[in-house]
């Protein structure tokens, strides 16, 4: 790697101060799984002068339920998500999504915040959180601000972060805590796979009418950023829960996506996958809803 200066931040405000002081040629390192892999083969023009390490900023850790909902610190690793009793109980889809990222080594290093700020279209943590209407909290020199995760993603590898800003936490709003959600990823192999398509489906069940309530379908790797399949969602809202409805939502979601053809797959194949995976993700979420209902 080419030379850079290194500063370790004590906490998030120290990190923001360091970013402001050393910008604009500055990068944040947390788990390092994306940053270092990038820097080793990136052209000199992309190389930062300064790297700020936030891996010791303990205020960015922790998973807890707050008045606002479930709060996940940006420094929480994928392994911590997989092992968290709260998340396992409330959002098994987040556990599944975390499990599909890299392998044990990279899941131990890689953080939720780090995964989201890469903003690659195939970001594995993205779809489930977007389907759950997650909100991100950003700290900057002028204080903190919040915005929906769906808006945090701006384009391929582009986020709404301004210079010297830091993603500090992700919140799943109270009304969606425990919302039945299912995540599916399709990659080119089973271990360490990159997504050809990611799908998360989430909805409440109106048990009186057996209909979809507040359905959300989020798709990854099939558009410049994580998107919601809005026509599929619109169709499902209030619709009776049947396999036909789920299949139809899959077809609609496929139309909502804007996939590209690249060396990993063609656009048409990605569209076909979305249809199948959306249907299956809806089935998975419904299964979970039924299971939860039986338990309660």
């Amino acid at each position, binding site marked *: 790697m*080419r030379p850079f200066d*290194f*500063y*370790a*931040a*004590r906490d998030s405000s*120290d990190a923001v101060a360091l970013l402001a002081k050393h910008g604009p040629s500055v990068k944040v390192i947390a788990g390092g799984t994306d940053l270092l892999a990038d820097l080793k083969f990136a052209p*000199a023009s992309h190389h930062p002068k300064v790297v700020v390490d936030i891996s010791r900023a303990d205020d960015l850790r922790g998973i807890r339920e707050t008045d606002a909902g479930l709060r996940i610190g940006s420094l929480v690793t994928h392994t911590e998500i997989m092992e968290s009793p709260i998340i396992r109980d409330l959002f098994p889809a987040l556990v599944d999504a975390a499990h599909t990222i890299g392998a044990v080594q990279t899941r131990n290093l890689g953080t939720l915040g780090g995964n989201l700020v890469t903003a690659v279209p195939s970001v594995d943590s993205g779809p489930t959180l977007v389907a759950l209407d997650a909100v991100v909290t950003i700290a900057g020199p002028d204080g903190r601000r919040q915005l929906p995760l769906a808006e945090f993603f701006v384009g391929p590898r582009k986020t709404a972060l301004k210079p010297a800003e830091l993603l500090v936490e992700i919140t799943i709003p109270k009304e969606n805590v425990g919302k039945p959600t299912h995540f599916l990823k399709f990659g080119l192999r089973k271990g360490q796979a990159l997504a050809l398509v990611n799908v998360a489906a989430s909805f409440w069940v109106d048990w009186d009418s057996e209909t979809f309530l507040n359905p959300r379908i989020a798709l990854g790797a099939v558009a410049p950023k994580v998107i919601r399949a809005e026509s599929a969602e619109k169709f499902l809202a209030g619709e009776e829960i049947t396999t036909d409805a789920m299949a139809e939502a899959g077809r609609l979601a496929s139309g909502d996506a804007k996939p590209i053809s690249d060396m990993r797959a063609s656009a048409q194949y990605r569209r076909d996958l979305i249809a199948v995976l959306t249907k299956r993700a809806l089935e998975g979420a419904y299964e979970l809803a039924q299971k939860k209902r039986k338990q309660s």
Partner: protein
Amino acid sequence: MATDTKTKTTALVDAEQLLRVPSAAPLVPFPVDVQVPDAARQTPAVGQRATRPDCRLHGLGQTKYIDDMYLPGMLFAKIKRAGVASARIISVDTSEAEMTPGVMAVVTGKDIPCNSFGPSLKDQPVLADERVFYAGDGVAAVAAVTEQIAADAIEKIKVEYEELTPVLDPLESLKLETPGVHAPSANIYGHKIIKKGDIEKGFAASDHIFEASFRTQMVEHVPLEPHSSLAQWDANGRLTVHSTLGRITLGRADIARTLGIPMSRIRVVATVVGGNFGGKNEITTEPVIALLSKKTGRPVKCTFTRPEEFYASTTRHPLIMDYKTGVTKDGKILARKIRLVLDGGAYCSWSETTLGKACILSAGPYQIDNLVAEAFVVYTNKTMTGAMRGFGAPQVCFAYESHMDDMAKALNIDPLEFRLKNVLSEGSLSPTSQTLHSVVVRESLLQAAQRFGWKPKTAPEAEGAFA
């Protein structure tokens, strides 16, 4: 890494003291209680599940691969890659790289005393000097005090190219009107034909004739250990090269030839190689680092990055395979015609061997009295192909065994049964009319079928055929 100065100062004092104290940990843990496993103590030795002495060192992390060797004063070399698939080199300007602090020496293709090598055709340059034949060709090399300085310095080497249209499709390359990749040499640089029996008669006697075409892709060996070599000279003008080569005897001959020095002055040592699969049978950077070492009077090491391992080493030949087979209605193969086109990439390397093996093996382990198998290998401006585990056999096996199943299905014969009707047996004549001995295809089919629990599918129409 404390950020406030006070802690930092304290840490520094502490650290400096510690820097002077060598590690107390044993450099070589010595597992004295470990007994030699029983199998290695038994006689007779053959047939024993003896454990490997090297496995213990691997497991302890004590095996020294080339990249684990750090010699005092050692320099690190990096190769500048062409990045264009076909071009004439107009000029190579290394002046900026040479002036970079930490850079100790630079070499280009013009510095190589005899700039060609290869196991059969000597068509590969050590570093490209006049022409680039594929994007992974090296055009210059740098030795520097750190890997990063060497990597930065090769970026500063300016190469001017006259880009030429690359030939990428092997079928295109096969056509006579296609410009020669290595003009004036022809693109078809290898041809094999096997003729046995009378193929026309065989087809005429057949009840059914099946045709099919198959293609395979280019793949990499992916040894976990990237290619690495380390060169140093002594005051008697003797060169020692530690290398990941799987064939040191011939590697030494290639190094001697390209450098123009007697073999007696070269010592090639291979430690345990971290995976070969055919990909480490040829010299890569050895002559280059030898020259860099000679220029600097220091040991020089060059280890491929993972991307280099893909684009600067050999790969498996992609094949285009056309099959035509004549069979009787009860499933006896009477005649087979095969045409193979091998995409050889930029250089011959082990294409001769691959061509021969692919052609001979393409009939499959079957008794076929009337056979024509013809194979061509052509140049393209792609990554060179070479030796890889199986030398063309996995490709042709995919073709002949897919073909067999399709025929079995069409004939309504169980695939196992169909094979058993046609396999080679003791004393069979091979496609080259060699009398075969210790032939056990039948035994292996039956053993595998038994282990698997293979039963003929009980489709009503298939039953009769199997019985």
